[in-house]
């Protein structure tokens, strides 16, 4: 399984995961080794098999449509790195790639 530094950089960007150059170099080798091992999956004939997303047999679990007391803003904001008292505060989004 041949990976390139460009692949590693692309995946890290998808994951919004900052990595140093040294981490990228190390991950390139490690991911190649792991993907090389996992490649044996391709040898299994799965033409007659459906996918398993979860092993339970529950489908469309609904709760009763009754209002409940929410956790409340104070508790929900208690662990946030930055708030204005009622909202989570983040830096600029306009002018970044998310705004493109």
């Amino acid at each position: 399984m041949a990976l390139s530094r460009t692949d590693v950089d692309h995946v890290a960007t998808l994951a919004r995961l900052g990595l140093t150059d040294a981490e990228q170099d190390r991950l390139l080798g490690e991911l190649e080794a792991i993907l090389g091992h996992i490649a044996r999956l391709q040898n299994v004939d799965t033409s007659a098999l459906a996918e398993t997303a979860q092993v339970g047999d529950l489908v469309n679990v609904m709760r009763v449509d009754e209002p409940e007391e929410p956790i409340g803003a104070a508790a929900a904001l208690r662990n946030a790195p930055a708030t204005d008292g009622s909202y989570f505060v983040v830096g600029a989004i306009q002018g970044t790639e998310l705004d493109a």
Partner: protein
Amino acid sequence: MTPRTITELAAALRSGSTSPRTLLADALAHAERSQKDLNAYLAVTRELAEAQADAATRELQDHPDTASPLCGIPMALKDVLCVDGIETTAGSKMLSGFKPPYTGTAVQRLFDAGAVCIGKTNCDEFAMGSSTENSAYGPVGNPWDIERVPGGSSGGSAATVAAGTVPYSLGSDTGGSIRQPAALCGVVGFKPTYGRVSRYGLIAFASSLDQIGPFTRTVEDCALVYSAIAGHDPRDSTSDPRAVDDPLASLHAGVAGMRLGVPREYLAAGLEPGVRASVESAFRVLEAQGATLQEVSLPSTDVALSVYYVIAPAECSSNLARYDGVRFGNRVERPTVTEMYMQTREAGFGPEVKRRIMLGTYALSSGYYDAYYRQAQKVRTLVSQEFEAVFNQVDAIVCPTSPSVAFPMGSHDEPLSMYMCDVVTLPANLAGVPGISVPCGFVDGLPVGLQVIAPRFEDSRVFRVAQAYEQATEFHAELSPYAREAA
């Protein structure tokens, strides 16, 4: 005097020979004495424990006949289980200082039964690992040899029971993270059927695989704790609504007439000779109890490891997207939100978590989804079908829990060699079936575990087989040096 089981302590509390405060003081003192060597605790929750011990004292006085057997007994929680207002880090720098605004369901059920929580136990970061060496807060020592790992990811929860500090703890098991450390530490560890125990308040790793379960010193104690935490919870949509049968009712029914299967692939290459010898002696013990043992086959065992290392990282990469420095956890300030995300996650996650996020993101990315993720989901179906076919031939599976005994710290520095540790535990997670590890011998003074696996929702059968084995042997009564000192 040896460290006592839940059953013994419950009797002692009712006879008045001890009190919740006395048990708590002993547990806290022992946790403190062994912390330097074992590093089993990330936090000691003295204030919470004292309040719970006092409430338990009142309950035992007012309702001695109806109080739960867990009432007044000290315990510990893996640090992936949320407790309202108590720091919960998942072994990660990302969550240092995080105090959940609610208590998880399994934990709340134990608290309602009168449990006394003495602390949060160390674990691999976000439960990713097989040695507890991936904790951001340092590794855990195995009480049988502190130069060796306790297994993982629930290493602290296994070690603290093996050390005799508390008679039980909770862990979580995604690919073996309860059963493998139980084996390596010489205690009992149980992963329930997927859907049996609510995961509300469990910090998510891989949601189609994660289950909460107990560590104890005996099978009976394990069934007791399981009974207390099992059952439907509307707050977890994967929690199963069917009634839970009482594992204590059939605990002593024995294995006479039962058919037990030994998967030939689980005794294949890679198994240490001493582990093989211990497990094969265990098979003879079960035969002597009247069980019929036969060879069975789970042909996809080898490829199941690959299925797991696609599906678990894929789900992890999705679950851990929430750690973005906005709602909880730590943040590295940067001018734009994207840079803030990237640098927050760079600083907050350790190497194994980054590796799995990268692997999972790759397997889910455009162009690779079909070849990796979808293919792994299909092979997962095959793994489940093979278990079903085996359970048409036999009542339960018996096999090793881990291919090796506890290994020296630092000896598995290649990710793939660490991943191989889970080869005989992770298929049960893929199929959602229940499994237990019970002590079945020693190799050079290090414990070996016997694994018992049964069909989905046959959790009681797992306990029944494990109990029959335990009662015919004395391995569970062997004490680590720290447990001998606990008295």
